[in-house]
C-alpha cells in the first residue's frame, strides 16, 4: 500500500467512523454536554462571585479572589483535575459514591471560574461610574445597583470573551478521562480514543474532533448574533407612535427630535 493511502486510511476510514458513530452520539455527546454545561453554570456563578469580590472595597474579599484567580489560572488544567478528582475522591466516595463526575465537574468549574471571574470583572469595571451614581441617586443600595444596573451591562459587554471560555470548557471536559470512567460515562474524546486504541486507526478520534467542532463553531456564531442583538436592540418594529413634543409653553415651538 502506498504511504498516501495509508495516511488516508488512518484518518478517513469511513467504516471505522460508522462503527464509532452511534456510541459517539448516544454516550459521548451527552456526557460531554453534561460535563461542559454543568461546569459552565457552576463556573459562571462562581466567576461572578469572584468578579464582585475582586472589585469589593473590602480587602478581605479582594485578596482571596486575587489569590484564587492566580492559583487556578496558573495551574495546568490536567493537574487541577487530577488534584481535585483524586485528592478529594475519598471524601466524594462518602457523599455520592465512586462516580468521578461530580469531582470532575467541580474541578472544571473551579478552573473556569478563575477565567470567567476575570472576564466578568473587566466587563463590570468598564461600566461608567455615572451608571452607579444614577442608580444610587434613585435610592438603590450598592448591592441592588450592582445587581440590577451594573452587572447586567458589564456582562453583556464581555459575552464573546465568556463564550471563548465556554469553548475552552467543552474541550477541557475531555480531561476528566484521567479520573477513570466506566463505559457509560465516557465522553467524546474518550470514546474516540478507545476506538483508536483497539483498531489502531485514528478515524474515530477524528470523528470525536468533528463532534467538538460541531459544538464549538455554532456557539461562537450564536453569541455573535446575541451580541449584535444586544448592541442594536430588537430589530426595529415599525413605529406608529405619534409626535411627542407638545412639551410646554416654555418649549415654545422648538421640536426636540433627532
Amino acid at each position: 500500500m502506498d504511504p498516501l493511502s495509508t495516511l488516508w486510511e488512518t484518518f478517513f476510514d469511513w467504516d471505522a467512523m460508522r462503527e464509532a458513530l452511534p456510541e459517539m452520539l448516544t454516550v459521548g455527546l451527552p456526557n460531554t454536554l453534561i460535563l461542559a454545561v454543568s461546569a459552565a453554570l457552576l463556573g459562571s456563578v462562581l466567576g461572578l462571585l469572584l468578579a464582585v469580590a475582586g472589585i469589593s472595597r473590602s480587602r478581605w474579599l479582594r485578596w482571596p479572589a486575587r489569590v484564587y484567580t492566580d492559583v487556578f489560572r496558573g495551574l495546568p488544567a490536567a493537574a487541577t483535575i487530577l488534584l481535585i478528582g483524586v485528592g478529594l475522591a475519598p471524601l466524594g466516595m462518602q457523599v455520592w459514591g465512586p462516580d468521578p463526575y461530580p469531582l470532575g465537574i467541580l474541578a472544571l468549574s473551579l478552573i473556569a471560574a478563575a477565567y470567567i471571574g476575570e472576564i466578568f470583572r473587566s466587563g463590570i469595571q468598564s461600566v461608567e461610574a455615572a451608571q452607579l451614581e444614577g442608580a444610587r441617586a434613585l435610592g438603590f443600595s450598592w448591592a441592588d445597583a450592582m445587581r440590577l444596573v451594573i452587572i447586567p451591562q458589564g456582562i453583556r459587554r464581555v459575552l464573546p470573551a465568556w463564550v471563548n471560555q465556554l469553548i475552552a470548557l467543552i474541550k477541557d471536559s475531555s480531561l476528566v478521562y484521567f479520573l477513570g470512567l466506566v463505559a457509560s460515562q465516557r465522553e467524546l474524546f474518550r470514546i474516540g480514543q478507545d476506538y483508536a486504541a483497539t483498531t489502531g486507526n485514528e478515524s474515530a478520534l477524528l470523528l470525536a474532533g468533528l463532534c467538538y467542532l460541531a459544538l464549538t463553531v455554532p456557539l461562537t456564531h450564536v453569541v455573535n448574533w446575541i451580541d449584535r442583538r444586544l448592541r442594536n436592540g430588537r430589530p426595529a418594529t415599525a413605529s406608529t407612535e405619534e409626535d411627542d413634543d407638545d412639551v410646554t409653553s416654555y418649549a415654545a415651538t422648538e421640536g426636540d427630535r433627532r
Partner: protein
Amino acid sequence: MTATTTTSVSLDVRDVHLAFGPNRVLRGVDLSVPRGATACVIGPSGSGKSTLLRTINRLIEPDRGDVLLDGRSVLGDDPDALRQRVGMVFQQFNLFPHMSVLRNVTLALRRLRKLGADEAESVARAQLELVGLAGKANSRPAQLSGGQQQRVAIARALALRPEVMLFDEATSALDPELVKGVLGVMADLSAAGMTMVVVTHEMGFARQVADTVAFMDRGVVLEAGPPEAIFERAEHPRLRRFLDQVL
C-alpha cells in the same frame, strides 16, 4: 404639564464643608430654599456647584455642616431612603441603556416602592406623558435624542414623587436646539410647586424661573438673592466679572 407634586418640602444647607484631600471643594456653603421655591446655583466650573448637589442627597457625605429637609436634619437618615425623597437629574442623563424607557422609570417603583407591575407601569406612563414622551415607552434610551433622554431622566426621578429635585447642569450636554424642551419641563415643574435646586449655565432660565439665584465661587456662596438683584444689581466684583463673561 399639570402639578405633579403636592408634597415638596423646604431645603436648608448649613455651613457645609467638604475636602478631597488637600482640595477644599466646599468651604461653608449655606443655601435656603423655601418649600416650593426654585434656587438656581450659578458660578464658574470647579466652584463646587455639582459637589454641593451631591452632598444634599449624600452621594457625597459632607465633612461638616448640615442638610435639612422640612427643618429636620437628614444626615442621620438612611441615605438610600433619603435619596428616594430627593430626585436628581444629571448632565449625562445616566439612563440605563440596557432597559427600555418604560423600564427605566418603573425599576425603582417596582423594586423600591414595591408597586405591582401594572401599577408601576401606569405611574410611569403617566409620568412619561407629562414630559411629552408617552410614545417612546418601548424605545431604548439610545434611540432617543439627548433632549428626550433627559426628559426621561426627569420622568424617572419624578415617578418616585420626590419632595425636592436637584438638577446638575441638566442641559449642558444637549445640542442647543434641544435645550428648550428640557428647560420647559423644568420650568413647569417649578411652577407646579416643586422645591428645586438647579445648577445651571442657562442664565435666561435662572432669571425667568428662579426664586433665588446663588452665585458660587471657590466653594462658597458669594452672593444670593432674587434674580433681579443678582442680574441687575450684583454687588460682589467676582459675580460682576462672571456675569460680564456669560451674559
